[in-house]
């Protein structure tokens, strides 16, 4: 479904992605882990064409999205939904209008049908009667749920998550992880999740890849990752300050 080949990206002469190659199969939850500043979000933005690589390609259903025109890229993006780290809800719109936005942009549904779908999507993420609230009135967990409802509005084939549990307390993190898992089981769509939440990753993932210094240093099923001999992987999974990776 998604194939990333030898992806390179530098900012100001500093390599952020240094030859990433990944294959993300259809219908799975694929978690990309790594420490802060290791290029996870940059990689995610390449997958949906928000950034263009210096070298390499991103293939979605065998189409290299790095070579598409802006109009063609918009066509491919209709296959995607994305939940941003801060939810990225439009703060000048109500919750209902946020979730309705992609429906109004890309479908010819009549307004009562749009409202019914908005209500159903919000109910799916456990929210009721919040359509008239504004993003500034929501808690972090509620914002993420609304962001997920918006990402699912057009029934996409692929949903990207950028740190879905960052900034949430452990209980709310678990609620969001469970919600992601339930949603994926219900729709059987491809989820690509960027995270540094090891517990959540092992709870949700069919496959995990780990980034370090812009490279993939380990990938496989959760069981394979636990057995990975790479000390960088093991240090990250253990959450230890002792090992080859030194943070200052």
């Amino acid at each position, binding site marked *: 479904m998604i194939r990333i080949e030898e992806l390179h990206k530098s900012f100001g*002469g500093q390599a952020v992605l240094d030859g990433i190659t990944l294959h993300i199969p259809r219908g799975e939850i694929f978690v990309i882990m790594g420490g802060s500043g290791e290029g996870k979000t940059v990689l995610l933005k390449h997958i949906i064409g*928000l950034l263009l690589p210096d070298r390499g390609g991103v293939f979605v259903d065998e189409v290299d999205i790095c070579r598409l025109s*802006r109009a063609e890229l*918009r066509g491919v993006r209709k296959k995607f939904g994305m939940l*941003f780290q*801060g939810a*990225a809800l439009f*703060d000048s719109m109500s919750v209902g209008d946020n979730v309705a936005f*992609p429906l109004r*942009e890309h479908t010819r549904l009549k307004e009562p049908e749009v409202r019914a779908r908005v209500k159903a999507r919000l109910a799916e993420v456990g929210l009721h009667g919040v359509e008239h609230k504004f993003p500034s009135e929501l808690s972090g967990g509620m914002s993420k749920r609304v962001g997920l409802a918006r990402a699912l509005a057009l029934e996409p084939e692929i949903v990207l998550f950028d740190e879905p549990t960052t900034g949430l307390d452990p209980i709310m993190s678990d609620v969001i992880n469970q919600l992601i898992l339930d949603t994926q089981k219900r729709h059987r769509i491809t989820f690509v999740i960027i995270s540094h939440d090891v517990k959540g990753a092992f709870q949700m993932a069919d496959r995990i890849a780990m980034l370090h210094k812009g490279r993939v240093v380990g990938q496989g099923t959760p069981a394979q990752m636990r057995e990975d001999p790479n000390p960088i992987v093991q240090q990250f999974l253990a959450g230890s300050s002792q090992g080859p990776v030194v943070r200052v």
Partner: protein
Amino acid sequence: MNPITRTGRRVLSEVEGVGRLVLVLLATARATLLPPFRVRETLRQMHFVGVKSFFVVSLTGTFTGMVLALQTYHGFRSFGAEAMVGAIVALSMTRELGPVLSALMVTARAGSAMAAHLGTMRVTEQIDALQTMAVDPFEYLFAPRILASLIMVPVLTVYFDFLGIVGGYFVGVKHLSIPAAPFMKAMVQYTDFLDLRDGLIKSCFFGLILSVISCYKGYTAGKGAEGVGTATTEAVVLSSVLILVSDYFLTAWLF
């Protein structure tokens, strides 16, 4: 990093910046000139740029006309040409002060808000969210603001001209006791429709300048609150400077 590498990187960065600006301008031109047009959003922006600027334009227009009448009266009185005050006020308003000052007022009120709004959308990833939802930000964010400015800045200019002339009449005739008939006669004799038309051509250019620059600065805002603040300041300063510089060249071309 040695000086040659540093200079090379800087040159490349500048060239990349120019290239990005050209691409944004092309995308903006296409989104503004070609359908689909977002009528509802354009109307909303027209309300924001135009209707909400009426109060500030009313104040500045009226007082500009009043002070202009006062200044010219004191100068012209020394050689007995008080009746020309009406003509000077009308010509200055329609040709110069109306287009320039109303555009500067719109820059300060609406241009700054455009840059701050788009800048906030940029730093909170709302523009990225738009793009991931397959919506063209130039069509959704730029085009309605540019069209609204192109329409409403000339409307505000006419309003500014009118109130300036009324203010000048009030000071000249009611306060300084210039006879109404010669005041009006000189105004009508020396001002014609072409003065108004050329002033409106200027105001269209100014509307374009302030909206494109404000949207571009917001769209390319740097990170965080500081990035939004810098983008807003740059939008207002650059728009104001370009309005004044282009005013000279437009005046040389039109009059």
